[in-house]
């Protein structure tokens, strides 16, 4: 049994008057992939955005309860969000490379955090990140081309490389394959398998098959509540909850 990396206790999230998450208690294991499934608007994305405090960007959003990473309270007001996000990277639904060169896309994070002071160190970080995200062979000869010139799947791997570049401990993925074709999706899934050796990964997905393929643990959300969580195998073969059963067999959602 692996260690618990992130632990949420009675986590509630409100957007203005509307409550989006209700008392979520969820543990994420270190160096494992946890998949979050559930119908649209059920709070999966809201949950992972709590882990790197991305909800801070939204003015009307309020978070109560506890969420801890290695015993450190993420919701602490005095917490340095910048260093939190250095430790918890994120990949978004739609590939969002910066309108910069491929090289600058990757070196952006390290530069901000003062990593890679010399050019050669930075080159090394860029190369490593691209290798880890399985993009190096495809782009090594055109690092100065704009990141937006890549294909959708390549762009998403570029975004994964960007997240890796600051050497995080956790990577959050918010439906990373929803804008991609099946071949690009397969590549990303392969990559996730590889990345879990180094990183703790949380992936939000609408594809049940994807959850089965990539994750070891699965949580099912519905209407802001965590309905059931457990080993992926168990959730998909023999769920305890009737609602989970209905969702994974496609009866609703």
């Amino acid at each position, binding site marked *: 049994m692996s260690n618990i990396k992130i632990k949420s206790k009675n986590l509630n999230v409100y957007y203005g008057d509307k409550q989006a998450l209700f008392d979520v208690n969820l543990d994420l294991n270190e160096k494992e992939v946890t998949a979050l499934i559930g119908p649209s608007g059920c709070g999966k994305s809201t949950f992972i955005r709590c882990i790197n405090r991305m909800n801070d960007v939204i003015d009307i959003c309020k978070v109560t309860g506890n969420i801890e990473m290695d015993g450190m309270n993420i919701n602490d007001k005095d917490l340095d969000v910048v260093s939190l996000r*250095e430790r918890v990277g994120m990949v978004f639904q739609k590939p969002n490379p910066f309108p910069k060169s491929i090289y600058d896309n990757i070196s952006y994070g390290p530069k901000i955090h003062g990593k890679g002071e010399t050019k050669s160190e930075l080159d090394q970080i860029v190369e490593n990140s691209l290798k880890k995200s399985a993009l190096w062979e495809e782009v090594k000869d055109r690092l100065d081309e704009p990141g937006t010139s890549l294909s959708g799947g390549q762009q998403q791997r570029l975004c994964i490389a960007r997240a890796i570049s600051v050497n995080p401990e956790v990577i959050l993925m918010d439906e990373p394959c929803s804008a991609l074709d099946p071949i690009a999706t397969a590549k990303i899934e392969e990559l996730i398998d590889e990345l879990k050796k180094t990183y703790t990964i949380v992936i939000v997905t609408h594809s049940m098959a994807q959850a089965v393929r990539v994750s070891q643990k699965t949580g099912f959300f519905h209407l802001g509540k965590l309905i059931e969580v457990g080993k992926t195998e168990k959730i998909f073969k023999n769920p305890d909850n009737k609602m989970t059963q209905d969702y994974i067999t496609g009866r609703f959602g």
Partner: protein
Amino acid sequence: MNIVLIFLITIFSVSLFFYGKSKTKTISIKDNIKLNALPKFYGYYLVLWCSIPALVFLLVWSLFEPVIIKSIIIETAANQGAIFSDKNEANLIYEKIKAIHLGTYFGDIDSILKESALAYAKFINLFTNSKVVLIFGIIIASVIYSLKKIKNNNKARDDVEVILKGLLFVSSLIAILTTLGIIFSLLFESIKFFSVINIFDYLFGTNWSPQRAFVRDASSITAAEFEELKDAFGFIPLIAGTSFIAFIAMLVAVPIGLFSGIYMAEYASIKVRRISKPIIEILAGIPTVVYGFFAALTVGPFFRQVGENLGLTVSSESALAAGLIMGIMIIPYVSSLSDDVINSVPQSLRDGSYAVGATKSETIKQVVIPAALPGIIGSVLLAVSRAIGETMIVVMAAGLAANLTINPLESTTTITTQIVMILVGDQEFDSPKTQSAFALGLTLFVATLILNYIAQRAVKKYREKYD
């Protein structure tokens, strides 16, 4: 007369609309046929057919009627024995005849004029009558044609589409032709100017004093006068003054406008934004003449006072005062446009930057601004062209003397100001002084064109890089 005709055509077309609509409806019900278009399209079809040919005819007729009548009348007057040596005198006689006809001529009327005036009245009558008859003929013909089409259940919807496309095309054609007309009028007057003043003397001369050009007729210039004129129309001081004042204005407007735009787009709460944005935009609504007297009466004297206290000689009309006020005037253009551009940068880019741990200002500096750069450059260039074209503030606050200087505390002048100076008051239209205004206009036009071209190239280049 024309107004009455237009009114009649309108009334007639509108009633045809209802006629066409209800007629086709009844036909379709009575004969139980499926119409090729909605009934209202048959209405539109009739309206367009009834009005457009008649109105076009009316327009063309009104353009040519005076010209034709004039040539006929001048010829009749000549036959009657009127004597005129050139076109101007012929025009004068024609104006007299017209005035007699209208009863507003108070000079002596000889028999030639009297006869011609009678002929004029006759022709006017004839033309008006035939105009009315022809217009009604055209309306009747086109209405009969379109009614027949409707009875055959034509594809009125497609036909209306074609006619509308034609109308839109004609509208853009008018816009283009107007532009060409303006360019050519600038060009021809400028050519006249450059036939007297050498173009190189103009472009590279460093002295601008058009009041020296008292010479009336280009053909009678003596060698001495030519030498005098040669260095009266030097363009350099004007372009220098224009660029200088615009530069000062941009120094004020770009940083303040851009920073306030960034604040509005990225930091201000909705409440602050809702109040402060309209207030900034009010700046753009203040008439430039108000800025002008603010610059001339408040800022200029203030600078002079400060300058005196510091032991500097500051002219009460200075490039600094004009440039500063112009800059303030331009702030809302830069701020409002860059605010819009920054707002349109997708949130996902900001999220991506935050997610690797960038702070807000790092995100703005390194992601948002570069992504918005084409638009920001665009807004700055719009502001530059506004600054170059601005006249009133400069007239009032920077002075009229064409000094070639880079001292912002001295008075200087701009191209537009000089055009105003040349064209106010009495002037001879064939003196080089007046024509120089057209040359200035043409140069300004070409300069702005080049600037716009460069701007578009720059924006395109950045866009390729960033989008």
